[in-house]
């Protein structure tokens, strides 16, 4: 837990005099503090990006890509993974105490933008004594932060790695987010967001929100391959009237329930809105080329063929804007049938591209340090 005692002025105008961030780090910061990578998590991510904690059923959410000899090699990089404000894994957010009221923030937590996460990460950076990130890396909403960093603090990062992301959400994306929010708000236990003070949890709404989201993170092919029409219980024999449950039903219900145990409903509403509000070039006359002219770092953009939540076309638009702005950029479109979730899952080519790019970054750092 890191105490950030500097005040942070949020995009909405509210000032948080101080805030706390849960942070995990992996690897060792080198002598000239130049080998740090900032990991930006997405909607439901936490600071626990890699390795195992006691009692974990699964390792950190990006464990496939962070570790010794992995794409983000902890033998070469110092990896900083904060849980961002407004989330619910211990950092200041709807579930923590509002100093002004001594009650949980709940629905009163100020609305956030991706830039607020970036500003908070910037304060963390100063706290850690890092002046320039070797890379800022993120998938989905994380990629949005990595792009925002390149525009707001161009001199404070050398590389921006933008994975399965977009410069803004589509109407369809916003629609799915609104369905999820409505599901939560429809739960009688939601109590206009003041459920914590009343010892209630809108588990049903949050589970439903997650189930909707989860379907959009998978692809039709991936679901067909993993579950098909296999049954969990019951059968279709004539004369059988026992209940029938498809495997996909029990899987989705399990995922929804698990999520409802781990995540906070107000945080879900807050962060999905943050996603909806993000528009990279809004203050650059809606011209992404003009926006990226403010950047100076190198970019690696990665997308996945079956991702329909953040389709490859969105990443191509990022790449085109970067080329138009004359920035250094490489783009890879990874063949995968895993949908949006592909950015978290093992994939040989993805590992090669991300690992190859960052290995080059490490080579250059080590050459300049030597």
């Amino acid at each position, binding site marked *: 837990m890191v105490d950030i005692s500097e005040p942070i002025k949020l995009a909405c105008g509210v000032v948080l005099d101080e805030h706390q961030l849960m942070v995990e780090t992996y690897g060792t910061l080198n002598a000239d503090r130049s080998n740090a990578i900032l990991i930006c998590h997405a909607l439901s991510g936490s600071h626990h990006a890699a390795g195992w904690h006691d009692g974990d059923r699964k390792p950190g959410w990006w464990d496939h890509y962070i570790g010794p000899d992995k794409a983000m090699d902890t033998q070469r990089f110092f990896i900083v993974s904060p849980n961002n404000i407004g989330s619910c894994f211990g950092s200041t957010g709807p579930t923590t105490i509002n100093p002004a009221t001594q009650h949980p923030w709940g629905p009163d937590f100020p609305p956030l933008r991706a830039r607020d996460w970036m500003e908070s990460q910037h304060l963390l950076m100063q706290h850690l004594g890092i002046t320039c990130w070797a890379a800022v890396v993120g998938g989905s909403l994380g990629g949005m932060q990595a792009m925002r960093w390149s525009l707001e603090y161009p001199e404070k990062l050398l590389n921006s790695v933008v994975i399965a992301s977009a410069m803004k959400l589509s109407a369809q994306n916003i629609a799915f987010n609104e369905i999820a929010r409505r599901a939560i708000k429809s739960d009688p236990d939601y109590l206009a967001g003041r459920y914590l003070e009343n010892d209630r949890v809108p588990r049903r709404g949050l589970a439903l929100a997650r189930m909707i989201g989860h379907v959009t993170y998978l692809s039709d092919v991936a679901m067909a391959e993993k579950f098909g029409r296999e049954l969990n219980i019951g059968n279709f024999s004539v004369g059988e009237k026992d209940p029938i449950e498809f495997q996909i039903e029990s899987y989705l219900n399990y995922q929804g329930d698990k999520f409802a145990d781990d995540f906070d409903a107000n945080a879900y509403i807050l962060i999905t809105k943050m996603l909806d509000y993000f528009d990279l070039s809004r203050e650059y006359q809606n011209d992404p080329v003009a926006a990226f002219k403010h950047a100076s770092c190198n970019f*690696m953009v990665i997308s996945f063929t079956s991702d329909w939540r953040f389709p490859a076309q969105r990443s191509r638009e990022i790449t085109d804007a970067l*080329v138009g702005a004359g920035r250094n*950029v490489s*783009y890879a479109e990874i063949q995968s049938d895993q949908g949006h979730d592909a950015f978290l899952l093992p994939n040989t080519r993805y590992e090669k591209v991300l690992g190859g790019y960052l290995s080059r970054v490490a080579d250059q750092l080590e050459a300049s340090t030597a």
Partner: protein
Amino acid sequence: MTTDYIAINHWIGQGVRVLDLGCGDGSLLAHLIETRNICGYGLEIDPTSIHTCISKGLNVIEQDVNSGLHNFSDNAFDSVIMTQALQVMRYPHLVLDEMLRIGRECIITFPNFGHWRTRSDLGFRGRMPVTEQLAYQWYDTPNIHFFTYSDFEALCCQRNIRILHRQCISQGVIDRCLKKVWPNLFTETAIYHLSR
């Protein structure tokens, strides 16, 4: 440095914006960055080549030229290059048009199918030529259009493409002497510097 690199190098200014279509392992881009300090991008679809470019720190974009170049605006580049790949394109004439739309100039290199050796393979032996430039068997080749130096000249004329420079490259001594007189017969690789 190969002869075609020397020619291409001559036609590229200092610090210009270059797009290399089908950039392979990025060796031409790397060469032009070193000698001409260009701002260069390569398009490629082969995963291994893309990985090689990324490892070299080159700008490489995964995009199939056959699917169009409409994502690039008019005159987005000072120079658009395509080496030894026009014969692989589905519609070479449309690719050429697109190259001249997105680049102020373009540079094309291609194997001349009118060279006497390929002609003799086909004319005397009655077999599809397999040469250093066209090193594939007919049943397993990415090369789907065979054309000659003269064919290309005719296409440029027909589509009002201005030929700024042309250079013929051959390895053999005799070829090198005679290519000036009969370029269509003695050129192995043709290099064109074009504009609208």
